[in-house]
């Protein structure tokens, strides 16, 4: 009898029984207590999450980003989180001009050089090279049994850009912590100081006579100042609700208001004649305010051996950009603690009211215009796969690989002449690889 039980037990062992669950039953029988015993411990050691990510667009931008995040929980549930991010970016980025049948010459935004784009090619400025260092700190602490406050700051610096921000957030728990309401505010101040200065809105890109004094004078005349800034205020209110033992949902509303220099100093618009030939390139001009509303909802459902994480975001702003984002992750959990997580993301946005792929000669200049495809009508999707495994002493390792596809779409403006023969809305593919180690 005993022998048979042991054999059965061996078979169970192979499929990794839920040791904790079975042990709880055994303990309840021994101590005559209820099954709702819990354990709540934490230690004061620093925990680290380190990650390195490589982002690679075919023929365009390559970026490598490394993160070291550390957090520590103190005796009374205060949490200190610190994060250092370093990223390096090199490669080529679309300058906004349209492709042409013939080669086009452009002046670099710095005024220190020129580059030629072959006929039929989407114009890319290949001089992007920047390194960014970012430091983030956040302190969270309970104020009472139900209130928690959090405050943090962020400083980020790259060659031509600086950002400093602060935020604070208050949460209140209700209904045995099954419902949590939160409200937060963040303020950010950014300064951009592009090499070559800030171009005047709609100033023509100076190309002819490169190297001459006349060129230098004309280039200087096309510039406004050396730097400019913007200020952002974000407000966020959120609700987190535990639905049942296996499900939790979160809903947020956020409002963001930016004021200041919102134009991209590196982007131009082609001015084309009636046959579609580019006659000149004008620096873009965007409004100096933008306010966004975002609604975000996320739910997580645990099936025991897998977990489904879905989220949706709707964003709308006064530039008339509306966007929808769907994100689905399905984590398959193996008994060994390993997991596999496929990921799908769909994103679709409408164009800003002032987006136009090019300007036409003889047209009256609009107040604002930008040919940056990132504020045009755009659909993107991401396909990803993550694999994670536990390591010794509670450490963990995970890897993920994602494929990102961007498909800019026509805003409906009819193309004509030679523009019919070139690709105005070039698609873009990128690969993202990341390794994360937590200890």
């Amino acid at each position, binding site marked *: 009898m005993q022998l048979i039980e042991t054999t059965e037990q061996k078979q169970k062992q192979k499929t990794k029984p839920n040791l904790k669950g079975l042990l709880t039953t055994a303990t309840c029988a021994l101590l005559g207590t209820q*099954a*709702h015993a*819990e354990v709540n411990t934490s230690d004061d050691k620093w925990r680290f*999450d380190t*990650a390195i*990510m490589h982002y690679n667009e075919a023929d365009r931008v390559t970026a490598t980003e490394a*993160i070291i995040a550390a957090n520590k929980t103190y005796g009374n549930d205060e949490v200190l989180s610190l994060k250092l991010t370093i990223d390096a*970016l090199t490669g080529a*980025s679309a300058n906004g001009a349209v492709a042409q049948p013939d080669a086009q010459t452009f002046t670099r935004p710095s005024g220190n050089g020129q580059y030629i784009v072959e006929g039929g090619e989407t114009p890319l400025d290949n001089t992007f090279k*920047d390194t*960014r260092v*970012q430091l983030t700190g956040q302190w969270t602490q309970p104020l009472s049994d139900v209130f928690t406050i959090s405050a943090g700051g*962020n400083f*980020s610096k*790259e060659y*031509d*850009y600086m950002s400093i*921000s602060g*935020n604070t957030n208050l949460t209140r728990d209700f*209904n*045995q912590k*099954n*419902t949590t309401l939160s409200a937060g505010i*963040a303020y*950010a101040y*950014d300064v951009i100081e592009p090499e070559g200065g800030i171009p005047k809105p709609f100033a023509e890109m100076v190309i002819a006579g490169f190297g001459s004094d006349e060129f230098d004078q004309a280039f200087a005349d096309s510039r406004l100042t050396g730097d400019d800034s913007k200020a952002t205020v974000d407000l*966020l209110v959120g609700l*987190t609700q*535990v*639905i*049942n*033992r296996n499900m*939790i949902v*979160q809903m*947020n509303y956020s409002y*963001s208001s930016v004021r200041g220099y919102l134009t*991209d100093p590196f982007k131009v618009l082609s001015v084309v004649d009636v046959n579609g030939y580019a006659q000149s390139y004008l620096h873009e001009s965007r409004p100096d305010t933008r306010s*966004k509303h*975002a609604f*975000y909802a*996320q739910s*997580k459902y*645990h099936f025991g051996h897998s*977990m489904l*994480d879905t989220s949706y*975001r709707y*964003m709308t702003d006064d530039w008339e*950009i509306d*966007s929808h984002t769907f994100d689905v992750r399905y*984590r398959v959990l193996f008994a060994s603690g390993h*997991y596999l997580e496929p990921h799908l993301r769909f*994103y679709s*946005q409408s164009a800003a009211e002032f987006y136009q792929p090019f300007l036409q000669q003889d047209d009256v200049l609009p107040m604002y215009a930008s040919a940056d495809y*990132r*504020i045009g009508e755009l659909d*993107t999707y991401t396909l990803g796969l993550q694999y994670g495994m536990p390591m010794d002493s509670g450490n963990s390792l995970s890897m*993920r690989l994602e494929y990102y596809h*961007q498909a800019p779409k026509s805003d409906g403006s009819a193309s004509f002449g030679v523009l019919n023969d070139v690709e105005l809305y070039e698609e873009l593919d990128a690969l*993202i690889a990341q390794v*994360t180690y937590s200890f």
Partner: protein
Amino acid sequence: MIKLFEHTKQVLVVTLVLITSLLSGCSSLGVEPWERDVLAKKEMALPTSAVDAALDDHIYFSKEASSGGRSFGGGGCGCN
């Protein structure tokens, strides 16, 4: 007759149980503190991984016109 009566009673009890469980399901979302075992798992955290979320926010902030929503995300860079 008696059998029929018993059957009706059974149906009544089943229906009552269903209605009660539906009502209590709607009026009291959430779990007792000792039922948080599943919610306490790493994969149920919001967000699952802060580091992954930060990297994603950075990519999509620089490639698309929308950002944030989940938290004060993205920004802080002159991404091109």
